[in-house]
Each structure stands twice: as C-alpha cells, then as structure tokens.
C-alpha cells in the first residue's frame, strides 16, 4: 500500500507540475506578444507551440495518473468525464447561440467554457465519490 501511495503521489506531482507549466506557458503566449517581446515574428508562434507541447505532456501525465486508478476510481472519473463532456457540448452550444442571437450582453469567450468544464468535472467527481462512500 505504501508503494501504491508513493506511486500515486509521484504521478499527482507530475500532473501538477505539467498543469502549472501549461498555465504559465499559456499566460506567456497570451501576454508575451504585447508586454514582453512586442509581437516578434518568431517568438509569438514559438510560445504558442511550446504551450501546445506542454499541454500534450499534461494530457499524458493525466493518462498516467488515470492508469494508476483502481476500478472504483476509474468508474467515478469515467462517469464524471461523460457528464462533463455532455454538459460542455450542450451548454457550450447554447452559450454560443445566445451570443450569435445577441441575447447576452457579452461575448461567448472560450474561457467561460473552460471554467465551466473544470467546475463541472470537479462537482461530478465530488458527487460520484459521495455516492460510493
């Protein structure tokens, strides 16, 4: 069990590290062209590619953690992912439609959808974990 816990901690730390660097490279790619390198023709696409590569490594780290889950944890996370995916598509398209038809006073930015996805997944995992307690 100690080995399992150590391995779990190692994989969580790896995922946390890739997630934080992904957020950091996203911030650099977003604000860098305006505030750091003044829209340099090489640095802007380079920062975006670095961010994309970092995101792929974050996904691989998440897969590594998922592969370490036991059968109940996998069920909890798979159900949560299913609910999150469904809600993100349905709510995302509704949100976009509201924007297109000018029924909301602000733009339907992708950032809102990302926040919604994160909160939805977190809520679904908490509810599903409680279900099996």
């Amino acid at each position, binding site marked *: *069990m100690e080995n399992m816990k150590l391995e779990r901690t190692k994989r969580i730390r790896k995922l946390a590290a890739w997630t934080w660097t992904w957020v950091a490279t996203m911030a650099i790619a977003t604000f860098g062209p305006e505030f750091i390198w003044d829209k340099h023709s090489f640095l802007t696409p380079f920062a975006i590619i670095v961010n994309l590569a970092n995101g792929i490594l974050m996904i691989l780290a998440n897969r590594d953690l998922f592969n370490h889950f*036991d*059968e*109940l*944890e996998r*069920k909890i996370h798979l159900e949560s992912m299913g609910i999150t995916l469904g809600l993100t598509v349905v709510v995302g398209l509704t949100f976009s439609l509201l924007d297109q038809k000018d029924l909301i006073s602000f733009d339907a930015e992708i950032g809102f959808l990302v926040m919604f996805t994160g909160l939805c997944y977190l809520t679904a995992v908490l509810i599903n974990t409680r*279900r*099996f*307690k």
Partner: protein
Amino acid sequence: MKNKIRDLREQKGMTQEELAEFIGVSRQTINAIEKQKFDPSLPTAFKMAKLFGLPIESIFQFEEK
C-alpha cells in the same frame, strides 16, 4: 450483488486497509464493495476468492434487479 466480504474479512482478522493492500485496490473500494454499493471486477473477485479459499459463487450472490 450481495457479498460476504465483510464477514469473511473479519473472520480472517483483517482490516479494510490490509485487504485492500492484498487485492491491490484502495480502502475506499473495499468499503464500497462491502456496503454493496460497487460490484468488483472479475479479477478482483477471483483474488478475493483465492484469499478466502472459497469459490466465487459462495462469496458473491447475483440478484436480479
């Protein structure tokens, strides 16, 4: 699915943590199986049957819902 995991574990004097370690799952999973909130996979059921020295069908009883 009904099961006798809690009784069998207690007869063996094992804690949920010890059983979880032997089977290779988390303690929460053992707890969910004992409370019949979660049905284990076939490999997990076989590992339990081997540990308790009983056939699977005497540990788990299928119930039509």
